C-alpha cells in the first residue's frame, strides 16, 4: 500500500484534513443545534413571551405565601387527576413568576408519540401568584421548550434517533475542534490577526477569531453536551459493572432519580404544608419544585427540590417525604467527589447556576459558536471555489460540490434565523384556539426552514443570500412591533414595569438586536457585490458576459 495517502505532508496537514471534513459534514446540523441550544439558555423567558395571557398575572405586585400556593396547586391536582402516576408543581422563583402544576399518566399501550404529546399538553394549569386562582388557560404553545428539545431530540422522529444523530454530530464537532487546534500552531497569534476585505483570508481570520475567542466555551459545551447523554452513547462501563441493570446505575449516579414503586393500596395524600415548612426551616429558603409520585397511594412520595443556587452541579438538593404519613424519608446527602464532578460537568452545559450576567455571557458565547460554524462552512466554499476560478472566468460552472455547499450554507446560515422568527410570528398570528396549536407552531418553523433550504438549492446566488438575510432581519427585528400590535405588554410597558416583565422586554430587545445584525449582513453583502461589479466592469469591459456569470456564481 502506498504510504500516507491522506497524510503525505505530516501531522498538521492530516489534522487540517480531518478538521475540514469532520466539520463540514455535520456543520448544518450543528448550526441548528447551536442556535436552538443558545436560545434554550433563555427557554423559560421565551416560553413566557410566547404565553402573553400570563403576563398580567405575573406582574402582580403581591404574592401569596409559597406554602399556600403549593396547597392550592395540590387541591387543583386532587380535583383533576387524583390517580395520576405523578404530579409536578413549580412554585414562583426568580425565572418563573407563576405557579404551574402538571400531571402525568402512565402511557397507554399503542399510543403514538403525537397522541402522548397531545395528552401531556392538556394536563396542566397555571395559578395566579397574587390570588391563587386559576388563570385563563394560556394559548397552547411549547415556547422555549420546543427549542430546548429540538437541540438534542430533533423533531418528527423518536427522541432516541434524534439523540444518536446529535451525538454523532457532537462527536464530529469534538474531533473538529481538537484537530483544528492542532492545525493552528500559532493559535494565539492568529487570534490577533484580522485582515478584513481580503476574501478567503478574511473568512479564515473571522473563523479563527470566533473559534479561538470562545474556544474554552466551544470545547466545554461540546464535551459537556456529550456528557449529558454519556451513559446512552457509551454503555460499556455500565454493562461491565451493573450488567443489564441500568436502573440501579441511574439510581446510584443520579441521586435524584425516582425509584419509588406504587403499593397499589389507596391512601390519601397528607397535607403537604408541614413538609414545606420543615424543608424551609432546614434550608432557609422555600423549595421551588414539588414532585409527587403515585399520589393517593400507600407508596406515595413527595420530593421537595430547591435550586442548587450558585454551585455548578445540576444535582439539586432535595428532601423526600412519605406521601401517606408525611414522614421524612431521605434528603440528598453530599454526593461523592466523582458524582459531584459529573454533576458539575452536566451543570456547566445547562448553566442553571448562572446569574443573569453569566447567562448573558453564555448566550453570547453560543452566538460565537454559531458564527464559528457558519464561517467555517463558508470558508470551505470560498477555498473550493478558487479551484474553479479559471473555469468560471472562461464562462464555465463551479462543481456540483461547491454548488451544493453554497446552497446548504444559505439554507442554514440565512434560512435558520428565518425559521426561528417564523416560529415566533406564528405564536402571535395563529388563532389562539386552533387545534393542536403548538404542533402548528413547530410545523411553521420547519416549513419556513424547508422553504428557505429549497429556494437556496434552486438559486444559490448572492441575491438569495441577501434575500434570506433581509427576510430574517425584517422578521426578527419586527418581533417587538408584532408584540406591540398583538399584546398589551409591548416595550413601552415592559421596560418600565416590575421585574416580572423583564423577560418580555429582554426578548424584544434581543430579537431586535439580532434583526439589526442580519440587516447589517445583508447590507454589507449588497455593498461588496456592487463594488465588485464596478471593479469587474472597469477591469474587464470586453469580457462582460463572463464577468456577470462569475458574479452570479460568487
Amino acid at each position: 500500500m502506498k504510504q500516507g495517502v491522506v497524510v503525505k505532508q505530516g501531522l498538521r496537514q492530516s489534522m487540517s484534513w480531518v478538521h475540514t471534513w469532520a466539520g463540514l459534514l455535520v456543520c448544518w446540523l450543528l448550526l441548528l443545534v447551536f442556535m436552538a441550544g443558545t436560545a434554550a439558555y433563555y427557554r423559560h423567558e421565551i416560553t413566557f413571551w410566547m404565553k402573553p395571557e400570563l403576563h398580567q398575572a405575573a406582574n402582580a405586585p403581591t404574592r401569596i405565601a409559597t406554602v399556600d400556593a403549593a396547597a392550592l396547586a395540590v387541591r387543583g391536582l386532587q380535583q383533576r387527576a387524583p390517580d395520576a402516576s405523578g404530579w409536578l408543581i413549580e412554585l414562583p422563583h426568580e425565572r418563573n413568576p407563576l405557579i404551574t402544576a402538571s400531571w402525568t399518566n402512565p402511557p397507554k399501550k399503542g399510543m403514538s408519540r403525537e397522541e402522548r404529546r397531545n395528552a401531556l399538553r392538556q394536563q396542566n394549569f397555571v395559578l395566579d401568584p397574587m390570588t391563587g386562582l386559576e388563570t385563563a388557560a394560556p394559548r397552547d404553545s411549547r415556547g422555549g421548550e420546543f427549542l430546548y428539545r429540538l437541540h438534542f431530540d430533533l423533531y418528527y422522529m423518536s427522541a432516541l434517533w434524534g439523540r444518536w444523530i446529535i451525538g454523532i454530530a457532537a462527536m464530529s464537532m469534538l474531533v473538529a475542534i481538537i484537530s483544528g487546534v492542532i492545525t493552528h500552531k500559532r493559535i494565539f497569534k492568529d487570534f490577533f490577526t484580522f485582515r478584513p476585505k481580503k476574501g478567503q483570508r478574511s473568512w479564515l481570520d473571522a473563523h479563527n477569531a470566533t473559534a479561538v475567542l470562545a474556544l474554552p466555551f466551544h470545547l466545554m459545551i461540546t464535551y459537556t453536551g456529550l456528557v449529558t447523554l454519556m451513559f446512552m452513547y457509551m454503555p460499556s462501563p455500565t454493562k461491565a459493572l451493573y450488567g443489564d441493570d441500568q436502573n440501579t446505575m441511574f439510581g446510584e449516579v443520579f441521586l435524584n432519580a425516582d425509584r419509588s414503586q406504587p403499593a397499589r393500596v389507596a391512601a390519601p395524600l397528607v397535607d403537604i404544608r408541614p413538609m414545606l415548612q420543615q424543608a424551609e426551616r432546614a434550608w432557609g429558603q422555600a423549595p421551588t419544585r414539588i414532585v409527587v409520585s403515585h399520589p393517593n397511594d400507600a407508596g406515595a412520595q413527595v420530593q421537595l427540590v430547591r435550586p442548587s443556587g450558585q454551585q455548578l452541579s445540576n444535582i439539586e438538593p432535595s428532601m423526600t417525604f412519605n406521601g401517606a404519613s408525611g414522614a421524612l424519608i431521605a434528603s440528598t446527602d453530599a454526593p461523592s467527589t466523582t458524582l459531584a464532578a459529573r454533576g458539575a460537568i452536566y451543570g456547566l452545559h445547562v448553566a442553571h447556576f448562572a446569574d443573569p450576567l453569566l447567562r448573558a455571557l453564555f448566550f453570547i458565547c453560543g452566538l460565537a459558536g454559531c458564527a464559528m460554524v457558519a464561517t467555517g462552512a463558508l470558508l470551505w466554499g470560498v477555498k473550493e471555489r478558487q479551484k474553479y476560478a479559471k473555469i468560471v472566468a472562461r464562462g464555465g460552472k463551479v462543481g456540483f460540490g461547491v454548488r451544493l455547499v453554497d446552497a446548504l450554507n444559505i439554507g442554514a446560515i440565512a434560512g435558520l434565523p428565518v425559521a426561528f422568527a417564523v416560529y415566533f410570528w406564528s405564536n402571535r398570528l395563529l388563532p389562539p384556539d386552533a387545534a393542536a396549536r403548538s404542533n402548528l407552531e413547530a410545523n411553521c418553523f420547519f416549513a419556513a426552514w424547508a422553504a428557505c433550504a429549497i429556494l437556496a438549492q434552486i438559486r444559490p446566488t448572492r441575491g438569495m443570500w441577501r434575500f434570506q438575510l433581509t427576510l430574517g432581519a425584517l422578521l426578527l427585528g419586527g418581533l417587538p412591533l408584532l408584540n406591540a400590535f398583538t399584546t398589551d405588554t409591548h416595550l413601552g410597558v415592559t421596560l418600565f414595569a416590575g421585574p416580572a416583565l423583564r423577560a418580555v422586554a429582554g426578548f424584544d430587545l434581543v430579537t431586535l438586536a439580532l434583526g439589526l445584525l442580519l440587516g447589517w449582513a445583508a447590507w454589507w453583502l449588497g455593498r461588496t457585490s456592487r463594488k465588485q461589479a464596478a471593479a469587474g466592469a472597469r477591469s474587464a469591459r470586453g469580457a462582460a458576459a463572463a464577468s456577470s456569470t462569475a458574479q452570479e456564481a460568487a
Partner: protein
Amino acid sequence: MTPTTWRYRGAVASRAVAAIGGGYVLTSIAIALIALALPLPRADAVSIATLLSFVIYTCAILWVFATSSATRAWVGIAASSIALGAVLWLAGRMA
C-alpha cells in the same frame, strides 16, 4: 496533488471505518476495563470511565488519520482492541 484516484478514495474510506467503527469498539473495551480496574465505589467508577470515553475516542480517531497508512491504522486499532479485549475477558472470568 491528484487525490481523487480510487486508491485514495478507498484508503480514506478504510480509515474512516477504522476511526469511527474501530475507534468506538476500542473505546468501549478500554472504558469497560477502566471501570472494572478503578478501586472506587461502582457509581464513581462507572462515571469516571464513561467520562473518559470521549477523550479516548477522540484520540483514537485522530491517531487513525495521523498515522502513515490505512493498514497501519487498522493494525493499531485491531491489535490494541484484541489485547485489551483479552484482558477484559480474563477479568470477567476471574470476577
